[in-house]
């Protein structure tokens, strides 16, 4: 029982990082109805810039965090400019494939700048504490708190501000939003930058708790964010949070009881089952037919 609870705690902590990744992902998808495969790699570009700052300028955790987030936003805007802005309404698949091509580009660029397989990343806080029989890590608690705060923040932004209202209008119908005087292009770019910033925070926290960065991070972030987002429900902020935490807990439990080889398998079985039984995700509405169509991917 203690094991089970400790696994659950560990899973919630790891799940917080998935939730953060899913939060940025779901924001982009919600507003644009398009899948940005370059999401993880652009976070990785930020992380590599952060590592550079750490190695050459001896930047501390806060400095590295700032550089990582700024780099992720810049890379994200580059992706938006090249893969999403110039694409016509019907070219969702082309935009997705284009973001995949840019993924290759960003990954290669990162490897060119820092060619070794692993680089140190400044740890945030490696202190641990015992709460009764349970072991807690401070940096993971920070991660969980950040996930909750950012999810609440994004939710408040969407439902409590004029900018959020504009975004929800665009989500509902871009043409109608344009007709009532919303600058769709500007709001979309801002939402993209915001999502990239959330991704940058997620990337920084994950890498700081791993204390290292590898070129595999881009793919890892895209996959984990995508899985968590799909489990929770496309475009849903609470869904991203719950999907991420659920994924983390399922992974932690299956790793403990079934072994590391079956951990990833369990995650994909969960995803496949969720999609088949509840395609809209746990929190999403049933997929609206025309929104879920390939054309408006």
């Amino acid at each position, binding site marked *: 029982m203690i094991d089970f609870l400790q696994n659950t705690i560990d899973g919630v902590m790891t799940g917080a990082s998935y939730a953060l990744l899913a939060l940025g992902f779901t924001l982009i998808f919600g507003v644009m109805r398009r*899948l940005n495969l370059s999401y993880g790699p652009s976070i990785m570009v930020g992380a590599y810039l952060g590592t550079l700052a750490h190695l050459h300028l001896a930047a501390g955790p806060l400095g590295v965090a700032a550089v990582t987030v700024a780099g992720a936003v810049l890379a994200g805007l580059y992706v938006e400019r090249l893969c999403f802005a110039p694409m016509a309404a019907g070219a969702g698949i082309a935009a997705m*494939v284009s973001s995949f091509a*840019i993924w290759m580009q960003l*990954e290669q660029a990162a490897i060119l700048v820092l060619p070794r397989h692993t680089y140190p990343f400044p740890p945030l806080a490696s202190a641990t504490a015992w709460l009764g029989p349970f072991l807690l890590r401070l940096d993971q608690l920070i991660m969980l708190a950040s996930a909750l705060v950012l999810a609440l923040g994004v939710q408040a932004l969407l439902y409590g501000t004029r900018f959020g209202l504009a975004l929800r209008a665009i989500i509902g119908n871009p043409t109608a939003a344009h007709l009532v005087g919303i600058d769709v292009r500007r709001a979309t770019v801002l939402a993209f930058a915001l999502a990239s910033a959330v991704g940058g925070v997620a990337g920084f926290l994950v890498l700081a708790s791993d204390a290292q960065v590898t070129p595999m991070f881009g793919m890892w972030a895209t996959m984990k964010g995508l899985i968590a987002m799909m489990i929770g429900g496309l475009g849903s902020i609470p869904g991203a949070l719950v999907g991420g935490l659920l994924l983390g807990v399922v992974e932690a439990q299956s790793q403990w009881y079934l072994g590391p080889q*079956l951990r990833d398998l369990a995650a994909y079985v969960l*995803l496949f089952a969720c999609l*088949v039984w509840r*395609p809209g995700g746990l929190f999403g509405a049933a997929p609206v*037919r025309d929104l879920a169509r*390939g054309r408006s991917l």
Partner: protein
Amino acid sequence: MDDYLVGVLSNIGVVSFVALSAYLLLLTGAISFGQQAFFAIGAYAAGVATALWGWPLAAALALGAAVSAAAAAAVGLPTLRLHGLYFAVATLAFAEMVRLLFELARYQVEIDGELVGPNGADGFRGIRYIFEHDLGPLQFLALIYGLLAAVLIGFMLMERSRLGVALRMVGEDEVLASLNGIAVARLKILAAGLAGALAGLGGGLYAHLTTYVEPRMFDVMLGVHSLAYGLIGGLGTAFGPLVGVLIDIGLLESIRPLAGYRMIVFGGLVALLLIARPRGLLDEAAVHWLQRAWRPRRRP
């Protein structure tokens, strides 16, 4: 031809099968990130058939295609009502499940004092049919392209038939297609099965070409690449995905001197191409134009 060129051409031919598989599904409007799973199933099934059971190559390739087709149709059923991104991610999840299962799967038999067969993450060594039967690289190349040509002829016949029209119609608008009396569900399962068979056939060829397969080769990267080939080359004709493969592997091989920068050049080129031509080089309009230019104009 030198061995290097034969190797590159063989690779292009084999990868074309997965690209065509993803293309066939794209015609019906389904975006699949998971065709690499059927490529893997075909590779393992055909490899086991020749290396462990001593089957002839033709029968083994047929088995690979058949098993993959059955698996694809079986996945097609539960994912029938999924569209767009939901379908894409469901196929992705399935493909990763298959890859991870192959990492666990062990089925080894001792042949001539050596263990042969799938050995989990260590892969499946010793698929030596083409050496044991004195098939040269050139002969195997001819086999790959012979099968590819047959598949392309099949595609061309299909595109002109009612089936081809029905498939594209389902891709354009499922509701409209069903209102026109097309059995959408049956057609989608059929397309999924055929696409699985194509990928499985390619996988069987791949296993015998490289004599060695391991689960890692069949990861998401292969799946997204095969989807991208159709979009780069064009969705107007079955030659589109081939052009995509040719551009990718051919161009990457030819800009080898730029080694460190080639993905930067290539990624940028693809992104720019897709801005100019969102349905690829050989899109429907280009194909129509080519057909008009090809056929002698009739007098009015």
